[in-house]
């Protein structure tokens, strides 16, 4: 309510303005008086430095209303007692045993998930075992080997029993060393196998 009871050019003021004004002024004076011992705070009074995005309060009105306002009508409807009926239906569907129309009980069918995977694992083991046997089969005869081909050339040389070999065997050893050597070794075509072995030894 406003009144314009004195010559004020038509401007009105709220009903309790005068009373409010004096009480607000007194409160302010008291608040300022409280800071008389704190000059730094007194100097900074009313300055908090915080700002707002432009037009924040104008936009907030609408946002708040949208978030808070209750919907005028329920757009989506559900049948009466839907949740109650649905609860019963779901409960029936998820029961461990079903009672059929004749009243006899059907036991739940148990599906072993590991049956199929067990067969796959067994097949895989079989393949791995076969491969292992195939790869290690030749090594099983190594002890029976009685020729130089079964021995590594370096093993033969390291045995320091060269004088026990025939010349032909020594030439074969030399040729093997030559071809196995990774170092650059220029083979002279004029050399025979014997001179190559001499160079190497």
């Amino acid at each position, binding site marked *: 309510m406003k009144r314009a009871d004195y010559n004020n050019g038509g401007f009105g003021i*709220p009903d309790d303005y005068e009373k409010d004004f004096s009480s607000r002024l007194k*409160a*302010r004076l008291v*608040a300022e008086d*409280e*800071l008389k*011992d*704190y*000059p*730094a*705070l007194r100097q*900074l*009074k*009313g*300055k*908090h*430095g*915080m*700002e*707002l*995005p432009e037009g*924040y*309060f104008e936009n*907030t*009105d609408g*946002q*708040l*209303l949208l*978030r*808070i*306002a*209750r919907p005028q009508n329920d757009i989506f409807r559900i049948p009466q007692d839907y949740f109650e009926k649905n609860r019963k239906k779901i409960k029936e569907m998820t029961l461990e045993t079903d009672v059929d129309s004749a009243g006899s009980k059907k036991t739940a069918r148990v599906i072993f998930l590991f049956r199929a995977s067990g067969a796959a694992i067994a097949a895989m083991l079989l393949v791995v075992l076969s491969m292992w046997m195939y790869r290690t089969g030749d090594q099983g005869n190594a002890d029976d080997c009685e020729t130089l081909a079964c021995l590594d050339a370096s093993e033969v040389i390291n045995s320091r029993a060269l004088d026990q070999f025939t010349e032909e065997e020594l030439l074969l050893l030399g040729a093997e060393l030559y071809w196995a050597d990774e170092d650059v070794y220029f083979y002279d075509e004029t050399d025979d196998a014997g001179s190559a072995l001499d160079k190497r030894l």
Partner: protein
Amino acid sequence: MEQIEDKTILDLYRAEETRDKALDLLISKYQKRLYWHVRKIVISHDDADDVLQNTFIRIWRGLENFREDSALFSWMYRIATNEALQFLRSREKRLTTSLDSVEQHLSRSLESDPYFKGDSIQLRLQQAILSLPEKQRLVFNMRYFDEMPYAEMAEILETSVGALKASYHIAAKKIEEMLVNAI
């Protein structure tokens, strides 16, 4: 807009057909005051915006049970205060891996806040306020910035006037010392 009395808003709320109008008036009348109250607690504008929305939702849902044994404004202020403090506590839980308290975190983030335009002294003032215990911080903000009468504060914070005065003076003394040392 002419200031609508709380009683009018409550009357509009109680009538089903004018309820939405009541919400409109409630927001228009109180959003600024509540915003600034919340902003001084949570510091960041974005956080204040979230808290303000949650506050109004809570107010609106609780208005039915508002018994009018306190002023509507005090009741709303209390809800806003609780929402803001609750927000800070949930923020603190998320900062469990950090050694910082939520106040230290806020204090640092203030320096890069695009909506804080205070000078170095105002920044120091806010950081000093953030270093206060929770209750002293609330009391100081309500009294120093909002010049809220102690009687109203007592109703909102459910504390005696004497305790509030003591809290305010202790807080003011601490902050004054921090400001003087910083200059």
